[in-house]
């Protein structure tokens, strides 16, 4: 049972435009959500997170939105840059100290 799903395996965006990556989850007990970015041959690196008590968190060009009623979160990148091309993973956890459950990832390609 996949509790965290990223239904789009890939996304292609023009440089300067907005990239929107989506993530759905099924477990209403998740209380903290994270986005990780992964370049080829490297480990995932933390990008941005959001607590379930918030609906938005912003950090520079990156904004994460959480819709608890829909069990949906999204990552917005504005403006998109070629260096943003990577695989993005959505992850969620139940309570502090518990493991992260990852989605399958979305490969973002930003074209110059």
């Amino acid at each position: 049972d996949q509790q965290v799903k990223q239904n789009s395996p890939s996304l292609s965006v023009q440089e300067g435009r907005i990239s929107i990556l989506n993530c759905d989850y099924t477990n209403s007990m998740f209380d903290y959500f994270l986005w990780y970015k992964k370049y080829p041959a490297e480990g995932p690196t933390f990008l941005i997170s959001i607590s379930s008590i918030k609906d938005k968190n912003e950090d520079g060009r990156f904004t994460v939105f959480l819709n608890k009623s829909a069990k949906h979160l999204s990552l917005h990148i504005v403006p998109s840059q070629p260096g943003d091309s990577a695989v993005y993973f959505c992850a969620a956890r139940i309570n502090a100290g518990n493991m992260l459950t990852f989605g399958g990832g979305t490969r973002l390609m930003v074209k110059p």
Partner: protein
Amino acid sequence: EAGVAQSPRYKIIEKRQSVAFWCNPISGHATLYWYQQILGQGPKLLIQFQNNGVVDDSQLPKDRFSAERLKGVDSTLKIQPAKLEDSAVYLCASTQTRMNTEAFFGQGTRLTVV
């Protein structure tokens, strides 16, 4: 600050052979994780250590996988015997405490079982 170190970077073995991976977490990080990432999927937690104790190994296939962190610093993950479906990238991650969620990952070890 040095990152999470893993070795080897790549390993190719035949099925039924054994293999071991090594991880050295960020200095001072008490919590260490081993993840398995199969191609096209997200990382899946295999085992979580807090210092030298196991916190969660519920998803570790214990008939063939084992892991230890004897001195609470570096850790080894072993597979014996390996199966074709064990081909994956094995990622090690660490956090300063169990309460930290933003884990730092190593580059991973890509295992190919033929």
